[in-house]
């Protein structure tokens, strides 16, 4: 199995520009993995939210700190890791944005969105410190087996 998993790593600086760049790279990879436009949007936005948090809470906008992204195209799903070198955090401490008293808060919806848009979501604390957000989405059923598989079509690449 591991030999079948395609892995792409990206390292970005803690900059606002990195947010959209991370999303665009993710969109490119998700599309080639066979996700449709709507799923690509959800996956891309999840990466966006993850990188925003690394930028803001993990690194407090300190440019020199690196944000790492790992994209793994496993046989059955796409796994994405967003890793920072900040203080880390516990999911249990994150307030529920759907609670009545939080509905009119102007923040606190990033993690909720990642959870809603992806099939799997967890947050690890790295030994060296820092948060590792791991999220995964199953490939669509229509897609056929194996990452990047497209329908065969004679005379057309």
């Amino acid at each position: 199995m591991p030999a079948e998993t395609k892995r792409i790593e990206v390292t970005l600086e803690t900059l606002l520009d990195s947010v959209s760049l991370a999303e665009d790279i993710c969109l490119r990879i998700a599309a080639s993995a066979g996700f449709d436009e709507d799923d690509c949007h959800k996956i891309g936005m999840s990466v966006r939210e993850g990188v925003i948090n690394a930028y803001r809470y993990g690194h407090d906008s300190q440019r020199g700190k690196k944000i790492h992204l790992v994209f793994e195209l496993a046989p059955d799903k796409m796994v994405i890791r967003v890793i920072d070198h900040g203080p880390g955090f516990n999911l249990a401490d994150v307030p529920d944005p759907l609670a009545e008293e939080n509905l009119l808060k102007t923040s606190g919806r990033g993690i909720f969105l990642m959870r809603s848009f992806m099939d799997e979501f967890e947050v690890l604390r790295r030994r060296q410190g820092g948060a590792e957000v791991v999220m995964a989405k199953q490939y669509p059923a229509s897609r056929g087996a194996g990452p990047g598989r497209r329908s065969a079509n004679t005379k057309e690449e």
Partner: protein
Amino acid sequence: MNLRATARESGSVIVIDLSGRITLGEGSALLRQMIRENLGKGHKKIILNLGEVNYIDSSGIGELVSGYTTVTSQGGELKLLNLTKRVHDLLQITKLFTVFDVYSDERTAVRSFQ
């Protein structure tokens, strides 16, 4: 690709036509500025026309909520017009769909302020 905003008057109501993305950074900032500017001029009946907005991230949602509470706290009203499917779904899952007054017809939206 990013956000454009233009404001126009429809009777005593200000309609802000937005198109593009309301996301962290300039998109959110532009929306905030437009709302502030109009409040500053005394316009307290504001409609955000989101018909051409196909992308809002958590920061953009925060900005909509912030706009809503700011306008409301000044005795005004902020309403939403023409949600795309994506924005509609986003407001639905975040339970904000019921918080905002949402319209799909501009005349009805304008009239709703009396």
